[in-house]
């Protein structure tokens, strides 16, 4: 059953590539505008050994990691605080509800003013975008903690810090993991966007650079394929890790902003 | 007339129906009893054309069943998943009539008539999930009635309602059976119910199931939940069916 599924998937991919190749060769698609599939695939493989391209990829990934990490350090404690202090949460809710719909990418021009060089602006925007799914999932997670478990621990004379560490954090962990996965899926979008607008280093800058030179469409598509591959692997790893670590956890809302 | 010849069904290597032969006359109310897991639902799903038999054939009025016959309605046990929660009660009842080429107004009147037959004329505008379980099953019966089928199949229709509601619904079936001269096949694992409702009871053995008993019920009409159940004939039939279900030679 699964063998057949894998086989069909492979046939589907191969079929897609062949049709695209044939369309180019038969002149249905102008190869000077959209290069042949074989050319693009060749370039894709070629880029894997291209030191310049790899350093661009490295720059993008570094910004993503840094931004995600900073966002975790900021948003998770904030989420725990808001989750455990309902009064503070209620007071700040209108403010958060007002800020949340601001699309992260609308802040690109401002970030480029405030944070210099571009690399820092990129990280700052990634932090902003990642904060929301992390904050909200953490908050939900903390609110979801079984009050009985907390009571029990308290009745044994544990202080609130001990309760936080022994009950709240472990049972919130799967929610935080979901938040991290959702946030990670946003990082690449933000990073590439900033690079497209402001240049500097990274996949987006590479794409802009290549697309301004005429006839480099094969490089542009190859770069896009690599971006997709990175997204695919990241999502696969994070989903897998989440499933392994927290089998029992049910999903909560997140968001792309 | 419904005719089943040498019907067998297996799920993979697990044989559930081990050769069923059965004839149901027009207008009959046949109850099929059998232990849980013996293949009652499988049999019903085969008749309804929801399952392709592994072997054997099913004829309705002499024609082999291929796909779902269009003069057949089913009342499932799990009413909450057989009524559509996104439609009002009236729309649920009227939905199958779309296939009959009726105008919207005709469909609506037919649906309201059927709801009246089951005593739910007031619930037309409600959603199924706003009703109790017994009422939802009434809606499912109304939907089947509005469809005016020649055959009505019921798969443990009262298995998930409380005892009082169950008795009401049994009486409802007895009351509507004559309406359009329907042939009814009612599946149950409840021995009392089969004798009380049916005019014929067929008993299935454990899987791979075969017919181990075929009794005709001569109880007088109208039947009454208290009086009928006290009749010696009822008591005798119940004991007979019970022995057959348990596989005790009687």
């Amino acid at each position, binding site marked *: 059953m699964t063998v057949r*599924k894998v086989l*069909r*998937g*492979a*046939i*589907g*991919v191969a*079929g897609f590539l062949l049709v695209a190749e044939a369309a180019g060769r038969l002149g249905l698609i102008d190869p000077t*505008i959209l290069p042949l599939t074989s050319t693009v695939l060749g370039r894709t493989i070629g880029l894997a050994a291209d030191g310049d391209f790899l350093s661009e990829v490295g720059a993008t990934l570094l910004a993503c990691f840094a931004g995600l990490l900073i966002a975790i350090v900021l948003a998770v404690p904030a989420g725990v605080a808001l989750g455990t202090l309902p009064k503070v949460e209620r007071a700040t*809710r*209108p403010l958060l509800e*007002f800020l949340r*719909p601001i*699309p992260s*990418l*609308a*802040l*690109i*021009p*401002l970030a*480029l003013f405030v944070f210099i060089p571009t690399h820092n602006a990129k990280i700052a925007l990634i932090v902003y975008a990642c904060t929301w799914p992390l904050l909200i999932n953490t908050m939900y997670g903390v609110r979801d903690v079984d009050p009985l478990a907390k009571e029990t621990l308290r009745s044994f004379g544990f202080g609130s810090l001990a309760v936080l560490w022994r009950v709240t954090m472990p049972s919130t962990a799967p929610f935080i993991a979901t938040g991290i996965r959702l946030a990670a899926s946003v990082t690449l*979008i933000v990073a*590439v*966007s900033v690079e*497209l607008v402001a240049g500097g280093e990274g996949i*987006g800058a590479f794409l*802009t650079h*290549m*697309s301004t030179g005429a006839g480099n469409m094969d490089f*542009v598509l190859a770069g*896009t394929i690599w971006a*997709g*591959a*990175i*997204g*695919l692997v990241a*999502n696969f790893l994070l989903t897998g890790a989440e499933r392994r670590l927290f089998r029992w956890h049910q999903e909560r809302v997140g*968001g*792309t*902003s | 007339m419904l005719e089943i010849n040498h019907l067998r069904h297996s799920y993979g290597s697990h044989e559930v129906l081990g050769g069923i032969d059965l004839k149901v006359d027009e207008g009959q109310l046949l109850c099929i009893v059998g232990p849980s897991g013996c293949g009652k639902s499988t049999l019903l799903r085969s008749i309804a054309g*929801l399952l392709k038999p592994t072997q054997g054939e099913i004829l309705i009025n002499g024609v082999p069943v291929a796909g*779902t016959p269009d003069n*057949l*309605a*089913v009342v499932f046990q799990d009413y909450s*998943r*057989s009524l*559509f*929660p*996104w*439609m009002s009660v009236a729309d649920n009842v009227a*939905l*199958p009539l*779309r*296939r009959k080429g009726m105008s919207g107004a005709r469909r609506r009147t037919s649906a309201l008539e059927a709801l009246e037959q089951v005593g739910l004329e007031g619930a037309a505008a409600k*959603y199924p*999930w*706003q009703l109790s379980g017994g009422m939802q099953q009434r809606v499912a019966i109304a*939907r089947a009635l509005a*469809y005016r089928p020649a055959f009505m199949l019921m798969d443990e229709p009262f298995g998930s309602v409380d005892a009082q509601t169950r008795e009401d619904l049994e009486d409802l079936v007895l009351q509507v059976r004559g309406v359009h001269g329907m042939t009814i096949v009612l599946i149950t694992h409840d021995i009392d119910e089969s004798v009380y409702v049916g005019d014929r009871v067929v008993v299935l053995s454990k899987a791979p199931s075969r017919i181990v008993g075929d009794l005709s019920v001569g109880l007088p009409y109208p039947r009454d939940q208290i009086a009928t159940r006290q009749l010696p004939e009822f008591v005798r039939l119940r004991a007979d069916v019970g022995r057959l279900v348990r596989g005790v030679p009687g």
Partner: protein
Amino acid sequence: MTAVSAQRPGVARRVAGRILSLWIMPVALVLWEVVTRWIQAVYFPPPSTVLVRLHELWFSGSWRTFFLTDDAIGNFLPSFTRLAIGWVLGCAVGVGVGVALGRSTRLSAYVDPLVHFGRSIPPPTLVPVFLVLFQFGGSMQVATIVFGVVWPIMINAIEGARYVDRQYLDTAQVFSLSRLDRLRRVILPAAAPKIFAGLRISVSLSLILMIISELVGSTDGIGHRMLQAQGLFDIPTTWAAIVLLGLMGFLLNTTFLLVERRILAWHRGARRTD
């Protein structure tokens, strides 16, 4: 009579409560104003300046154009049009293809890897590609939005259509519903909660993609206007655009949630009684 008079104070109190719970907004606004005036940070103009700019630039037009200025009409209109076309196209394709794939295990086995790859591509990376394919002008932005929103919608539609309760389908078959009725009245409503989950994500995503496509390759639109302001070191206008886009995001999300609540009212009702 009594019911009405008993209800009145309750409603009034609730409304008053809602308004009072917003106390942090004016406080934050005043604080922001005071701090920015005090430290005179170049990039952080006081909110009053931003609001004045927002009004002057875009909302001080004649009543005949609903108070919109020429600058507003020249930039909002293209933005909204592209957003609407892109989102609607993305929804149509995503739901259509998704439901078809969800109903056919065989078909979806063939295209599953392609779908997963497609959704993994960060949509902004395609802006350069579409720029070359469509040149400047409306279609590049629309293509970016369509490509971005189609995947989450499709993936949710696939899941929704794939896991339609078997008993719903059995019921449809038993009562010989036509193929169209089965699709319209059984499969689509049953998949609707999942489909709407995808649509919800797509609303904010489409706004993001509108912005990036306008920041990179546009001659008009709100994003382009914002970039222009950045180039001229016009900080208040940059801020005004942020506020405007934030408001747009808020309005789009709120409207969508209202529509969703109406259409999926049965779903919440049925779940509550389960």
